[in-house]
């Protein structure tokens, strides 16, 4: 099927060794369009459900008293949590000069940008009066953790969009030079990039600054989201561990989502040469570490609550351990800790099919974690209250499905216009990284002693 055709200007005489990375942009197959159609259908159904909710009110959801927050807030935390994949991983790996990051960073950054937009919309979806959403700007109170959220999510959105765009400029310039259509888009977005040394300097300076800035902003985002819960007095929420807990959980779920995305697009676009087993193995090791960290924090949280035996706190904990939420709770522990540790700690099972299974499990498990944080504390109030279990309604489920569809669509749309793997960084890796890395590693080793006048080996002092 004809996708983006090559325009009048001549292609480079020799084909780039990275032709595979241009193919998704320049040759889109029918599968792309079928998938997009299916996802759009899901999206539009969810949008219709939202319009229905807009006109009828939040009664179409399953929320009630005392469970006044449900799917929308759970998914809000879930999606924003995944956003930590991108920018944090990309920034941290770049800062550490980890060479295996090269094919990963672009996809990670795209995940962040898309998921922030989707997650950031969820509090609006949750509002009883979304037509008054502007009240937040007119009458906002910065004492409210929701306002902190508004501030930090918009800051992260700005920072991560810029952090996605700036390293993409050289790739956009490559597309421009190949004459890929639409030409005006790539000419405009490439911002006069010609690859001159001066421009390289500007780019690397900007990237260095951004990758340092983006880390505290990203950490602040999920910390502030955790403060929505931690700054109330509710049992199970008012806990000092929430900040680090949420950030660790976000990084964890983010890496898992990144893995799934990488594996899927590797298969679909045949990136096997670029996303090799070693990349997945390294990320899997990171994910394993995060699984242990997550378990440590979860364990601390519940042990503290359980040991203190404070009645309200204990009610909530037992609701999760043995009460109505026992199944999701133990499933969460199984998917987030037992499965990753069992499978990823052995080299033999640290292979792509196993990693896919484990990552999907973690994505589900981390969603369950958000469910378990939000609902039980509300379902078990301090005061005696008739119990009303929370079940999500069709509206909530279809809006969740629509959000996932929107994520996939956003990713596919990006893949249609921009390279999913950073082409210039791969080229840079081929040309200079090996040399630079060898030099760097050599610099860690002890310096050679002073050579003697001839080229013989230096003789140690005193020995003869």
């Amino acid at each position, binding site marked *: 099927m004809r996708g983006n055709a090559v325009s009048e200007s001549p292609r480079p005489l020799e084909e780039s060794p990275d032709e595979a990375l241009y193919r998704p942009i320049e040759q889109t197959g029918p599968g792309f369009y079928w998938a997009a159609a299916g996802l759009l259908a899901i999206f539009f159904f969810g949008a219709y459900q939202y319009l229905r909710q807009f006109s009828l009110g939040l009664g179409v*959801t399953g929320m009630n008293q005392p469970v006044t927050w449900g799917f929308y807030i759970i998914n809000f935390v879930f999606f924003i949590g995944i956003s930590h994949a991108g920018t944090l991983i990309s920034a941290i790996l770049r800062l550490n000069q980890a060479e295996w990051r090269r094919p990963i960073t672009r996809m990670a950054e795209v995940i962040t940008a898309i998921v922030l937009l989707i997650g950031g919309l969820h509090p609006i979806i949750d509002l*009883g009066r979304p037509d008054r959403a502007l009240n937040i700007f007119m009458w906002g109170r910065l004492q409210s953790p929701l306002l902190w959220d508004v501030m930090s999510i918009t800051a992260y959105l700005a920072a991560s969009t810029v952090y996605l765009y700036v390293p993409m400029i050289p790739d956009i310039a490559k597309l421009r030079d190949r004459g890929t259509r639409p030409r005006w888009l790539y000419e405009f977005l490439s911002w006069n990039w010609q690859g001159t040394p001066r421009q390289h300097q500007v780019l690397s300076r900007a990237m260095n600054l951004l990758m340092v800035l983006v880390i505290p902003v990203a950490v602040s985002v999920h910390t502030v989201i955790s403060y*929505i819960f931690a700054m109330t007095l509710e049992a199970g929420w008012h806990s000092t561990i929430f900040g680090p807990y949420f950030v660790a959980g976000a990084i964890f779920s983010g890496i898992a989502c990144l893995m799934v995305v990488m594996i899927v697009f590797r298969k679909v676009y045949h990136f096997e040469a670029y996303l090799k087993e070693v990349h997945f193995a390294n990320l899997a090791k990171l994910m394993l570490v995060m699984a242990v960290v997550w378990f440590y924090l979860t364990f601390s949280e519940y042990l503290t609550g359980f040991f203190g035996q404070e009645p309200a706190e204990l009610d909530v904990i037992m609701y999760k351990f043995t009460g109505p939420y026992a199944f999701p709770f133990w499933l969460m522990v199984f998917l987030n800790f037992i499965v990753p540790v069992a499978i990823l700690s052995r080299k033999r099972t640290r292979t792509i099919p196993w990693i896919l299974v484990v990552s999907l499990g973690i994505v589900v498990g981390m969603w369950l974690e958000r469910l378990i944080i939000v609902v039980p504390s509300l379902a078990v109030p301090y005061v005696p209250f008739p119990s009303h279990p929370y079940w999500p309604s069709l509206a909530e489920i279809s809006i969740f499905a629509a959000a996932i569809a929107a994520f996939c669509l956003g990713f596919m749309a990006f893949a249609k216009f921009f390279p999913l793997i950073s082409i210039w960084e791969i080229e840079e890796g081929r040309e200079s990284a090996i040399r630079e890395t060898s030099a760097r590693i050599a610099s860690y080793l002890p310096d050679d002693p002073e050579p003697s006048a001839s080229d013989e080996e230096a003789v140690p002092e005193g020995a003869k």
Partner: protein
Amino acid sequence: MSKELSESGLRHRRWGMVIDLDRCTGCAACVAACKAENNVPEVSPEEAQMGRVMSWMRIARKEVAEGERASISMYPSLCQHCETAPCTWVCPVHATYKGIDGIVGQTYPRCIGCRYCMAACPYTVKVFNWSEPRWEEALREHTNPDVSLRYKGVVEKCTFCSHRLLKARDDAAVEGRDVREEEYQPACVEVCPAKAMLFGDLEDEDSRVATAARSPRGHQLLEELGTEPAVHYLDERERRV
């Protein structure tokens, strides 16, 4: 807020309530009176089953241990109008706030329906309009004109019938004086057949309400949280010795 009060020259007051649980029979006349006075909408049986009853006041059941036996006690649960109200900390748009004379107010036109205050309230006393509220024909004709009718998507709660306070203040201002305690009583207090509820100025040490609040039978809900509610409960079983 105290700044407003001192500017208007009125004495600093804190309206509060004492409910004598040893007199309360659990008849829920207060609940009915509150609904009628404040135009609280009704819900269908299905919605009630789901847990969406719209009631600013409710009779809560509490199990009390007495040695080896347990007994059930009931208490009217309403907004406690806390001195340091967690709901007011978290509202993003200043729709719930600490208002005149310590009453925690609710501004319906500004509420965006985020329900954060509902999640933050440890007493679970706030209710939400999940759909467009409706009243049965007969009730619709007899709504209280002093209380605004709400609409879907906003939070509401007990206001200590502050519309009655505003009316009393207006009347008193005409005569150039302050509101007298007996001129302002919420509907629930007024209607209680067991005379179990007292309402007045907790700051006035000589008032009946302040005296009753100091009783050794007196306690407050969730005192350990430090919210400093304006509602005191008298209960022989909780007598401080």
